[in-house]
């Protein structure tokens, strides 16, 4: 029971880190970024590469997060911005192509073997008689702290108000003199950094390989559909639901059936409540 509680919280934290960034970009720029999973993969590979070159883990992790954030900004500037004027599907297409190119880039550089990202904390903790790897607890704590910090940033700062303003009404926000392109770049950097952090934190206990971007993006999509596209509280709640649902199914039935939950949840939600739990309405 305690085990389910802790494992569920850890996977929820990872999912939330991915889904919050995914939904934030959607809220601000009205785009679905399929390269979001690539940020997660690049974060993990960055940490792996830098530590394998002899850099200590903490600076390697920070440098990797910064590099991925920069990659997010550059990708937005070169690939996404010209397509935004065309259509939503053009953006989907170009981000999918970028994601595949990143996967192939990783494959050509590092090969398809599993790589190891070293754990920040290697001790085991015992909570109420259950052994938990320190890295998992760290992931949980870091996830809560990072998302909390992001929440405060959005709610309490001028920049955050600008983000909210654009997501509420992009045209009006522009008339108020908010530089939407710059805010968009900022949001891209934030969400890319958050996804990279998730990759680095989860790297030690998940498999790090070129195709690792794919499942996270599918989970993030399911979470965002259930929570409501563009809603941050919704995606946090839905991340908790998916994280716990998967853990409970894994413990009570079999790990085989966990993968199907996200797709099932997506389809059922789209049938019965397409706007999601907290979505205002079907956003398009």
């Amino acid at each position: 029971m305690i085990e389910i509680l802790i494992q569920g919280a850890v996977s929820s934290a990872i999912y939330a880190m991915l889904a919050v960034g995914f939904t934030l970009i959607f809220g601000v720029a009205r785009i679905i970024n399929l390269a979001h999973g690539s940020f997660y993969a690049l974060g993990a590979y960055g940490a792996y590469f830098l530590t394998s070159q002899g850099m200590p883990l903490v600076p390697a992790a920070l440098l990797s997060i910064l590099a991925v954030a920069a990659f997010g900004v550059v990708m937005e500037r070169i690939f996404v911005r010209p397509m935004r004027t065309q259509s939503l599907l053009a953006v989907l297409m170009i981000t999918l192509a970028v994601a595949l190119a990143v996967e192939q880039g990783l494959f050509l550089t590092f090969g398809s073997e599993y790589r190891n990202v070293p754990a920040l904390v290697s001790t085991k903790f015992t909570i109420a008689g259950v052994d938990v790897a320190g890295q998992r607890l760290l992931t949980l704590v870091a996830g809560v702290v990072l998302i909390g910090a992001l929440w405060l940033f959005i709610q309490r700062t001028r920049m955050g108000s600008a983000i909210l303003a654009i997501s509420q009404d992009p045209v009006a926000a522009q008339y108020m003199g908010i530089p939407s392109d710059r805010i968009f770049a900022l949001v891209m950097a934030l969400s890319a950094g958050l996804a990279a952090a998730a990759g680095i934190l989860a790297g030690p206990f998940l498999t790090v390989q070129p195709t690792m971007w794919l499942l996270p993006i599918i989970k993030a999509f399911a979470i965002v559909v259930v929570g409501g596209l563009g809603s941050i509280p919704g995606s946090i709640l839905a991340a908790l639901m998916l994280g716990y649902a998967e853990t409970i199914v894994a413990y009570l039935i079999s790990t085989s059936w966990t993968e199907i939950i996200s797709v099932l949840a997506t389809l059922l939600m789209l049938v019965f409540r397409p706007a999601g739990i907290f979505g205002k309405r079907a956003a398009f």
Partner: protein
Amino acid sequence: MFRDKIDLTGAVVFIAVMAILPVVFKNDYLIGVLTVAAIYAIWAVSWDLMSGLTGRENFGHALFIGAGAYTAGFLNTVWGFSGWWSIPAAMIVASLFAVLMGFPTLRLKGPYFALAMLSASVIMQRLMLIFWEYTGGEEGINGVEPLIDSQLSFYYFTLATLVIVTAGLLAVARSNWGLILRAIRGDEATCQAAGLDITFYKIASLVISGAIAGAGGAIYAHYQLQVSPALFEVVTSITVITMVYVGGMASIYGPVGGAILLVLLTELLRDFGEWRLMIYSVVLILILFFLPRGFIAPVWQRFKGSLGRSSS
């Protein structure tokens, strides 16, 4: 069905070249490459009917392809049916998947359809690996029987299927039905206001598209003589989409050319095997930026235009 004689002549020349090539070169390797090209062309035209015409891009065509191939694999090896049952059965199974996916997602605007298809195909691939006792896991299903023993005859069977499918879909695309699908691409709200049941049209086109892709999957299974979970991979869908983009969206005949061009190109670049998918993704990015209308269909239109001018 053909708007003019030039189109008809072009089609006849194309079919003749495709039919004569293996006779001239008498090369098993070339026959294999052409068979694969024809199968990819079937997948690409079927994608184009739904996604090209209505503009609702399907990121998980691999779902139908894989479903068709696995249907063929199970029927033929596990349950011992004759190979000729594979194609109709694959079409039925793939249509069921199309209804299952289309009903929740195509009622909605926005990216739901594209992404739900992507998710479903990825999850199907995972399920094929997870339930390896039944599906053979990574290895897939081996020992699928060939439909026709002679490789050359099988190639002609595939080519004939491609010609029939393309002709049929061209007829659909140029009929009233195709007009409605194009109108949906233009403005869904107006179509609804005009009293069209757009959800029905979208789901029906997805079913046709899925059924044909499933048939292609079954043919592929009987060509490879095995079925592997790699068919469900995102890469399969992207390959098909790239072919359509190269050929020119919504033209139906363009994707056939795109598929054949890219399959031949892949064979020429065989030495760069590892780079194949990288090249595909870069080609896709370049096409999206510089040739959003594609390559084959616009070139053909221009060629036709120049013929018209010189003859008149």
